[in-house]
């Protein structure tokens, strides 16, 4: 029986180590066990919700694995030991069924309490009031209580993200746009309309909240409000082809004034490029052999 006992002790130590890691690590390494957060209030609230659920999970984990381990050690076959011929215990079984159900009721309640804060955009900070504009809510699209946000269109395509910024008029064809890096003003609530042109993609900047799929033919919505300047990185989270791994995205948060300068520069760059293209076209129309 010696090797069996050694095996047994080893399993015990391993399980204890696993349990120990899960129980003790949060203090030491916060993000080792929890989702990314710190960029936007919705990400922070998901993080909080996760921590509550995780704590309940740890209790269940220690309860079940602890009982299993204790049972395996305590009731191993020994000389003279006789197994109790028990077929069941209705009261006990009803007890743990109700217990399991109660845990789930608690988790559901916590989720419903946390949900509005995660799902519904909040008002922009005062510092960013100049860059936000009224946005209409419709269907699943939610807007802040004051109805104002910076609404950016996110379009996924193999293998790059395109961002179209609002310009105040109703014509969507002349809006400033950028690829890969989105620039947003700090303190402004940014609402996103997420679409795709070819295959399914998924928009995700972990520190700015959950991911939302970009599916051709549909529009998906989410929001974030960056609280401090910086660069927040993410990447496409839905398999979109061979270069899926390199379909990266980043959000650069800057002060509102700098954002306005950025949009102005984008607009100038785009009109300069359009002018240059028109010039090339004119040259080519006149003489197809010309070097544009």
């Amino acid at each position, binding site marked *: 029986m010696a*090797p069996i006992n050694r*095996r047994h002790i080893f*399993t015990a130590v*391993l*399980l204890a180590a696993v349990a120990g890691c899960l129980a003790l690590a949060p203090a030491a390494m916060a993000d080792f*066990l929890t*989702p*990314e957060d710190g960029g936007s209030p919705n990400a922070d*609230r*998901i993080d909080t*919700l*996760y921590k509550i*659920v995780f704590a309940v*999970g740890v209790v*269940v*984990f220690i309860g079940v*694995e602890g*009982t*299993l381990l204790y*049972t395996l050690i305590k*009731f*191993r*076959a020994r000389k003279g030991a006789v*197994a*109790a011929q*028990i*077929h*069941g*215990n209705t009261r006990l*079984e009803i007890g*743990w*069924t109700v217990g*399991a159900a109660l845990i*789930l009721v608690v*988790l559901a309640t916590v*989720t419903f309490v946390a*949900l509005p804060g*995660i799902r519904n955009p909040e008002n922009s900070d005062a510092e960013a009031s100049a860059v936000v504009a009224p946005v209409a809510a419709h269907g*699943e699209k939610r807007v802040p209580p004051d109805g104002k946000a910076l609404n950016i269109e996110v379009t996924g395509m193999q293998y790059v993200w395109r961002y179209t910024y609002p310009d105040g008029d109703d014509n969507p064809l002349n809006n400033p746009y950028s690829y890969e890096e989105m620039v947003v003003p700090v303190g402004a609530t940014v609402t996103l309309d997420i679409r795709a042109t070819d*295959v*399914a993609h*998924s928009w995700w900047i*972990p520190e700015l*909240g*959950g*991911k*939302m*799929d970009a*599916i051709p*033919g*549909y*529009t*998906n919505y989410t929001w974030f409000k960056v609280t401090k300047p910086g660069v927040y990185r*993410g*990447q496409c989270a839905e*398999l*979109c*082809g*061979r270069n*899926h791994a390199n379909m990266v995205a980043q959000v650069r948060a800057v002060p509102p004034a700098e954002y306005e300068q950025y949009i102005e520069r984008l607009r100038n760059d785009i009109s300069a490029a359009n002018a240059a293209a028109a010039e090339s076209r004119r040259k080519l129309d006149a003489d197809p052999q010309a070097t544009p």
Partner: protein
Amino acid sequence: MAADTATSPALEPVPQITAHEVTRERSGIIDWLTTTDHKKIGILYLVTTFVFFLIGGVEALMMRLQLGTAENTLLDPSTFNALFTMHGTTMIFLFVVPIMAGFGNYFVPLMIGARDMAFPRLNALSYWLLLSGGVVFYASLFFSPPEAGWTMYTPLSNETFSEGGGVDAWIFLVHLTGLSSLVGAVNFYVTIANMRAPGMGWGRLPLFVWTILVYAILLILALPVIAGAVTLLLTDRHFGTHFYDPTEGGSPLLWQHLFWFFGHPEVYIMVLPAFGIISEVLPVFARKPIFGYKAIAASSVVIAFLGLLVWAHHMFTTPSPTVVLVFFMMSSFLIGIPTGIKIFNWVATLWRGTIEFKTPLIFAAGFISQFTIGGITGIIVAIFPVDWQLHDTYFVVAHFHYTLMGGAVFAVFAGIYYWFPKITGRMMNEKLGMWSFALMYIGFNLTFLIQHTIGLDGMPRRVYEYPDVGNLVLYNRISTIGAFVLGLGILLTVINILRSVKRGPVAGPDPWKANTLEWFSTSPPPDNNFDVIPRVRSVEPMKDIRRQIAYQTGTGSEAPPAAESLVRG
């Protein structure tokens, strides 16, 4: 033993086999190719699916090698995408689902005291359909293997974005293995409904047979949906239809709904028979009746029912109304209850037993400890706002490997070690089995525990490379090392099987002193399984038979069959 029991008044010998003709025994390979014997078909299933398991395992190791370091150039993206597509497809369609059919084929007739499956030739057909599905799929290696993931999301799997025949090979695999499973499911259902030994009411059906029954019903409900869905994909790809094409009024989300309407029941199709194996193994080695037979049997049925209502929890990040998200979160919560009941009942089965630490029991205990983790993370990802962070990351990869690898596969290994003596007549090596378990257990947890953190740190799944940021390299390297330890553990069991088949000690009919009827026959059982089919008086007929023998021959110290054991169950 059969001779002894034949003298018992309760086990009256009735001539039950009538020979209509005498056929010459076929030899070797022809016999295996033409067999309609459920045991031989079972062995064909088990061996074939285990080979696919090893192939899928090699694919996994190649992926882990690629991910062992940041920005690795070992594999190119198309190879990597093909690898995870083939790995997922192989493990699900060619390993876990059909190996359960393999165990079912071999043991359902034996456990219910039948001489074969209800439709032996249909049974052979179902095996050959499975094999041809596997061959058609793997033939794509020679032209262009599919790269769109085992979920084949449209539009990526459309002709525009996935040229070549890889996706078509996948579609035919789904059709062929699907037909195989449907035919097999009907066979299981009819066999279990009609061919039980006298006295074996529904309340005395072995728990493994219960789960195979539910497995069959789920297959019958889920497979036609995927068969229709992939046919639409096929016509989209080649015959000009636009079911999933958004530019022509079709819907990519339709595919996701149809796929997961099949895909989630498929998860329970894989894991329910695993639950059944655990429910058979634990009482034998704890020397104690299963705790709460009815609750365990009923929870399988409840899990199957709820399993049909949770599919859209795979789609929490798609554009869906809140009411849909809430419904599928709540239904996914609900399924945690019957699953929890099973875990509690298993632990209670061990409680106050006299646990013999044989390899099958150890794998079963490993199963419980790992499946519990998979269950807890399952509740975490069921909460849709939390899932927005976790979906399509390595957290989810870790979660489902805890249920399917740490769960179903560990149960399969428990089943292999438990039933190997019955199938081959020889025992497997216990020491090698222990080593195999130890390496698998350490390797598995090393591989997948850290993947939760990899996902929480923002690494999506299905990426062929990742940047060197944070601790990603360290975490991924731990995972890669773990995968190879796990592989080594599996290799030890392969060696164990190959050695023991020829050289293992002779097992005898009932080496474990088990509870169910398969142990009543010789090891391996003869063509028609039983000389006589005993009357079943409880959920543990072999325990009754052993007591009866001990009582009649005066060899044992055990009391005569207690009134309770005649009534219970």
